[in-house]
């Protein structure tokens, strides 16, 4: 898989299919925002509204925000990362099935459909990230060059999203109820990501269990840098990268192994 010919072919394909790739991303955006009157603005507004509701619910009704510094940013960090993961993997998962007519009639690399959905999700994420920084400024977060470290988890998360998308898209071709099962899984994931609560509330021996959740690892990375103004330890960096590489390899392997079977199931 990592032979020179593979990369040569990938580079050749990248050039050959660049136009298609752009068109696919354009299509994703057009389809998403055609109906919405506010266009791309909606993609910024939607997480903000969620943020607003969550902040209201958890500070006013449940009192979770007590004693947490920068609770808004705490929430926003969780939502930002979790939403990126959710959007990329959900869209990536259904991309093969949605384009089944094309895949069975025209010879194009099928992973392009998955990749384009992931890139669309990333663009969305980067737009929201800008709003995130605006909120940080308003909330009195201290900006420093340390913030540049965020490139690191963003990169790994993007790679992990693509790996998970490859994996799910492959499964979805075979099992059509994956969409619902994955919906349930995402709901569960939402609750174990410590988006609105703090891990400190649990006994210390459970803290490491949270590190089994790759999305939480990225969320915590964000919080460490932005709120706690700390640089995560080397072990933590390796953990973050490790998850991404693991899922990327698993996704690529699964996709490669089954890609020639898809045609019978689409």
């Amino acid at each position, binding site marked *: 898989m990592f032979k020179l010919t593979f990369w040569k072919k990938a580079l050749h394909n990248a050039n050959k299919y660049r136009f298609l790739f752009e068109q696919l991303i354009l299509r994703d955006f057009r389809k998403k925002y055609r109906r919405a009157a506010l266009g791309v603005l909606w993609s910024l507004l939607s997480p903000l509204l969620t943020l607003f509701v969550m902040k209201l619910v958890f500070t006013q009704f449940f009192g979770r925000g007590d004693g947490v510094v920068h609770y808004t940013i705490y929430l926003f960090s969780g939502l930002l990362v979790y939403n990126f993961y959710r959007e990329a993997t959900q869209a990536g998962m259904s991309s093969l099935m949605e384009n089944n007519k094309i895949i069975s009639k*025209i010879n194009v690399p099928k992973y392009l459909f998955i990749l384009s959905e992931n890139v669309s999700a990333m663009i969305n994420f980067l737009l929201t990230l800008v709003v995130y920084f605006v909120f940080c400024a308003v909330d009195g977060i201290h900006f420093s060059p340390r913030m540049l470290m965020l490139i690191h988890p963003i990169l790994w998360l993007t790679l992990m999203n693509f790996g998970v998308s490859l994996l799910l898209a492959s499964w979805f071709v075979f*099992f059509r109820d994956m969409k619902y099962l994955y919906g349930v899984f995402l709901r569960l994931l939402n609750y174990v990501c410590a988006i609105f609560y703090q891990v400190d509330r649990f006994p210390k021996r459970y803290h490491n269990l949270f590190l089994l959740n790759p999305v939480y690892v990225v969320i915590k990375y964000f919080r460490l840098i932005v709120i706690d103004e700390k640089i995560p330890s080397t072990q933590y960096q390796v953990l973050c990268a490790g998850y991404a590489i693991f899922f990327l390899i698993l996704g690529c392997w699964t996709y490669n192994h089954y890609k020639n079977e898809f045609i019978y199931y689409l």
Partner: protein
Amino acid sequence: MAVIECKDVGIRYKTGNFRGIGLKEYIMKRATSRYEVNEVWADKHINFALEKGEMLGIIGTNGAGKSTLLKAVTGIMLPAEGSLRTRGSIAAFLELATGFDPEMTIRENTYLRGAMLGYTRAFMLERYDSILEFAGLTEFQDYTFKQLSSGMKSRLAFAIAAQVDPDILILDEVLSVGDGAFRKKSGDKMREILSAGVTGVLVSHSISQIRELCNKVLWIDHGHQITFSDDVELYCDAYEAFLRGGTLPPLQGEDGHAEQVARLAADQRAYKEELAAKGLEDTDRISEMTKEQAVATAIRILQEHQPDALNKQLRSG
């Protein structure tokens, strides 16, 4: 050096009750051992080679494995055995009108489809106007795709695909599309592409098209190769006689193949002479007739083969 080389190719197809099921159903079916995957050989031991500029016509009844073979040549499916080599760029015309996005505009769909067919941005910008003009849809470019009639859809699909300058052209029953004027226009365009030295593979139910365009013929029956030959006339005659109820010849290389083919072909020629003596048209050219001629021919065929069905239809109005 052959442009397409197909050596002992076998293509498997999977059938069974596994399509469109969920994980829960899969587990249930596995648990009750009712999960069935049947592997069917759509094609077996197919051998042919085409040089540059040659045109192959594939004939065979429905379900013979023609379209599957085309998909393998295109690269959409992989052969399970044998080797299939192609040299140069491939343009495939397979059920063109599918895969468009109904919610997007004609303009957006045109660019997207062009991109999928491997055209570059510069190429599309240059050709966009002429594509729409060719399809006769210039004033509809901001309509959504679902607003078009099915004729318009196939015109657009053809116009985009026909911009190619490929080394290999693959056609599945789409030599010409649409009705009336566009039928002629698309047929002419296709002939123009074909005359530019392209190597082609054509699947068509119109034997007269195969006779006209192809210099090689491949006859497949239920996945088995009856023949690959450059005697197009002989095998087209034999195939037509077979369609009228003749006995299928043994595979090429087996005893009695040449004899049976010759017998069928002679039979077909006699049949044609008989028709000509009666002053009747060759039934195969129905697609090229005027509407009145086509209807008359269709009624004649029905009178000959299905008089009951025809009478029933006439009685019910």
